[in-house]
């Protein structure tokens, strides 16, 4: 289990949270002691994991397009399936996104979760292991196992610590995502039969027959499209978000939604280039519908979390447009939008959580005039609102802009309609902001509502820094995936060109 550097860093980052989880399990004492210790253990574990992942950030060589920090361990040698880990420019930042958001989530749950704290923290640590493992896996089978395993802790978090309709939401979440996964398993087996291995690097170089690519593409699509979620497979998301506890929503929007898009760029696009190219118009159509339709639906919402959940679907529509433009600006824009959305929508769910913790309502009409009593809150809400609508200088702009630039190279209408989110996003977000923050206070209990506490500041501080940093100096992030995306684009166009040549050869 050694890599070139001689140290299995990725495995350590992946499995360390489980060790923390084991420690939490071993805590003895009355309920209060267990709760306090569980919180601190979880926080420290996630912070150590974060520190380790920062080593990754520093040591990662962005000039290298392929996988780094590789680890390999013979697992099922007979079937040529191995425990393989590694990160390239595309995945490394998602590992960081996961490790950054986890401590934030734990901190955000500090007071909000009062029942079964031990189990809650344990679930979050397991979730972290699964997320990080999924982004690090360089073997399809390993990926598949992590990809599926993510469901379990998330299912528990929604189902146990959620709102009144939590069981419905949790089961819906589970069934939707699981249905897609079955088809992905079929695709996995077929690809293994064809290539003889499930090593992702090898699969990328394998040329699957064009006919086979089509059904493989749709099998994978079934799984990834639900996860993204793409329209019309998105209805599990608002329910899951509404019922999930705040931190659950943060991690769901921040990382879990990225799994689908990550799947597209890791598997569908590089391994099935012909099918991806051929069916790209389908993806574009669904994405444009997602952008316009869900933005409209978001506008009609009366529940803050639902509104932001729908806005997530719209933002992910921009991501899928970008991925399937197959050019550097589009794909980099999509990746950037994924990262930015992870930070910004996570922050927005936390923003909702702040007032939910105080008033215990997510209904928009329940609020109004918060600016008077909560100026700092109003400021942060404005910052993240603006980031969400893609104001230049914030994280949200760069991705959206690059996707428009990328999309225009493909089709004018794709760029214009895909960009409609710019307008509609402003409409529903500002409308939300107006109803919650502006106006005068009419409800009695809002007259004494408290502004942000130090703990809440600590939760938001990293997100504020990231939102502005990603907006003002995006090169420090795009630099990571520049080479990998360039290689991907080159690989894609070479594959398409060879198919065309082949087809011409056959007709002559």
């Amino acid at each position, binding site marked *: 289990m050694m890599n070139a550097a001689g140290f299995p860093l990725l495995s350590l980052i992946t499995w360390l949270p489980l060790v923390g989880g084991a420690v939490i399990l071993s805590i003895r004492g009355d309920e209060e002691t267990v709760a306090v210790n569980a919180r601190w253990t979880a926080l420290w574990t996630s912070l150590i994991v974060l520190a380790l992942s920062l080593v990754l950030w520093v040591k990662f060589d962005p000039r290298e397009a392929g996988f780094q920090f590789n680890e390999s361990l013979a697992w099922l040698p007979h079937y040529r399936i191995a425990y393989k880990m590694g990160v390239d420019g595309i995945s490394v930042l998602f590992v960081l996104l996961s490790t950054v958001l986890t401590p934030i989530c734990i901190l955000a749950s500090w007071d909000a979760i009062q029942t079964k704290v031990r189990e809650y923290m344990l679930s979050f640590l397991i979730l972290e292991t699964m997320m990080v493992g999924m982004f690090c896996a360089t073997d399809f089978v390993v990926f598949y196992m992590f990809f599926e395993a993510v469901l379990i802790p998330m299912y528990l978090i929604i189902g146990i610590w959620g709102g009144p309709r939590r069981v419905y939401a949790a089961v*819906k979440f589970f*069934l*939707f995502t699981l249905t897609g996964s079955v088809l992905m398993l079929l695709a996995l087996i077929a690809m293994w039969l064809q290539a003889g291995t499930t090593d992702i690097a090898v699969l990328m170089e394998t040329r699957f027959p064009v006919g086979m690519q089509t059904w493989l593409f749709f099998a994978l699509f079934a799984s990834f499209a639900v996860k993204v979620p793409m*329209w*019309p497979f*998105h*209805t599990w998301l608002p329910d899951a978000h509404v019922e999930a506890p705040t931190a659950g929503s943060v991690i769901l929007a921040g990382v879990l939604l990225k799994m689908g898009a990550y799947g597209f760029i890791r598997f569908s696009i590089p391994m099935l280039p012909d099918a991806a190219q051929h069916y790209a118009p389908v993806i574009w159509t669904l994405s444009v519908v997602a952008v316009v*339709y869900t933005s*409209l*639906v978001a*506008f*009609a*919402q009366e529940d803050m979390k639902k509104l932001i959940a729908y806005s997530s679907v719209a933002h992910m529509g921009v991501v899928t447009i970008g991925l399937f433009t197959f*050019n*550097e*600006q589009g794909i*980099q*824009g999509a990746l950037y939008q994924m990262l930015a959305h992870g930070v910004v929508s996570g922050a927005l769910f936390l923003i909702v959580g702040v007032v939910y913790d105080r008033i215990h309502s997510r209904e928009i009409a329940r609020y109004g*005039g918060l*600016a008077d009593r909560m*100026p700092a809150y109003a400021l942060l809400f*404005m910052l993240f609102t*603006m980031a969400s*609508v893609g*104001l*230049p*200088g914030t994280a949200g*702009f*760069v991705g959206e*802009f*690059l996707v*428009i*630039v990328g*999309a*225009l*190279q493909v089709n*004018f209408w794709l*760029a*214009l309609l895909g*960009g*409609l989110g*710019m*307008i509609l996003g*402003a*409409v529903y977000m*500002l*409308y939300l902001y*107006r109803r919650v*923050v*502006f*106006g*005068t206070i009419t409800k009695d209990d809002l007259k004494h509502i408290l502004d942000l506490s130090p703990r809440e500041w600590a939760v938001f501080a990293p997100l504020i820094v990231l939102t502005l940093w990603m907006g*003002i*100096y*995006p*090169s420090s992030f*795009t*630099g990571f995936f*520049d080479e990998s995306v*360039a290689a991907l684009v080159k690989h894609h166009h070479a594959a398409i060109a060879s198919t065309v040549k082949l087809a011409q050869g056959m007709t002559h």
Partner: protein
Amino acid sequence: MVYAIAVFAPLVGALISGLLGKAIGDRAAMGASVLGMLIAAICGPYAFFALVQDGHSSTVDLGTWMEVGKLHVSWSLRYDPLSAAMVGMVSFVSMLIHVYSIGYMSHDATRWRFFAYLSLFTFAMLMLVTADNLAQLFFGWEGVGLCSYLLIGYWYEKPSACAAAIKAFVVNRVADLPFAVGLALIFMVFGSIEFSTVFANVSKHTADSYHLFGRDFPALEAIGFLLFIGAMGKSAQLGLHVWLPDAMEGPTPVSALIHAATMVTAGVFLMARMSPLMEFAPCATAFVTIVGASTALFAATVGCCQNDIKRVIAYSTCSQLGYMFVAAGVGAYQASVFHLITHAFFKALLFLAAGSVIHAMSDEQDMRKMGGLAKFIPVTCAVMWIGNLALAGIPPLAGSYSKDAIITAAYLAHSNVGSYAFACTVLAAFLTAFYSWRLLFMTFHGKSRADHHVMEHVHESPLVMLVPLLVLSVGAIFAGMALNGWFIGHEQEHFWHGAIFNNPHNEIMHHIEHAPLSVELAPLIAGVLGIALAWFMYISRPELPAIFAKEHGGIYRFLLNKWYFDELYDRIFVRPMTRIARFAWKIGDATIVDGVPNGLAAIAAGSARQAVKLQTGSLAAYAFTMLIGVVVLVGVFILFR
């Protein structure tokens, strides 16, 4: 270096005032903000005059913004005559408005917030005008949009202010999308969005075409149209103007700064900045001319019937922006920038003077409840006269130079659109003079119509508000005379130094001083007639307007209701969108999209209940079923192998 200080001093002021305002108190926050602006107002004009002296354009590089494949975008400040002139004007006018606000906002509870927004706005505007690439321009472009939203909604307890703020942001966004797409198209055609690269390669791409609506368009035309739609939103041109009058919900200094002197001129600036490209897009520029001319006339007609003092001036702004676009459209970008600068002085003056009136009248804005104020607030009255004289283009005040140049340029275009623009602008000049003097007469002259409680409290504004007014008056009187030679006169080519490009076939700028006398006199005559008519209707026979409104009720209501644009948009955009949104949610999402999986679940549950019945407990039945299963499986395997 001085130049960079001019741009960033307001940002520092904004940050200190905004982030520390609560802690350090209103006075310190205001101090920081005004100090930042003072520094900017010294450095900005200094940098401008220094550039005029040595004529050495350059760029200040600040770092990389985006680096994606071929797309390279940097943070940098462009230092050429166009940018420097804008920096000088923006920083100077903004400084005066900051000072004025000290007095105007003195009773406000959260002054630190106001000054933070104001300074932040100035910074965004400065970033816009000093951009060296289109993305940074877009940064400033959206930044001023945000600040405008914040400032219009400054009194967030008022529902009307919140609505106006959202309207402003969203209407601007509607225009920003085509702008962003145009930007992407520039990248696609030129492989860069840096000004220097784009401008240097325009001639290579004149023959490029872009496929759209099923046919091929010249790519440069497509770019020109898309960018202009962006400009239409920011500069409140016909169709996308609806946000500007509502923006008067903000405090008056905001109206002066944003909705008169600076932000709304961003679109005009964009046209001038992109002149090397626009000059090769004849259809787009013709469209610019038509829209500009129509706006100039449309807004002037509406201005004649408004009763809110700020709204009159707001429509006047809208109309004057139309003039600037006419100039840009016919290729006289120099004249449009010249008018932009002179307009900034007298329009800021008019708004601030209106603020002084409102201040004196205990926050009354309806001119029907004013009248005869001249003897109570003589200084305000005097500066208002100066501002209106400049606006109406009475020589030798500032407006006469720039406005006449635009009307002459429209005439000299010798084209159909040029003639249309000439007719519209002359007619608008008549209406401009009319509504300006209507405003003066209704406010300052004749008999007072206010109730005596208000009249008892009428007072002249404090010195801190009057001094900026006086300084702006000096600008409104002399800016035209002083800058004429540089901007459009014989020194113009030397002055602009290539910052503005004119197609070699476009000789308007050479002939602008040699137009027929009748053309040169046209706006003056129109202006004098307008003043005369206003005098006749509001001083000589004050009963006339009411009679007119009664006899021609249709026309009157049409103008009073601003051509029913708001109602129209409400019908075709706002209400349907609300309805579609609810439909999409309740029917689309909850019933159809979600109905399928929920229905499937119900079917599954139902069939499970049926399936239970299959479990008879008979071993033989199970065995038989299994056998069939095996046969089918093997069959499938053999058939498809």
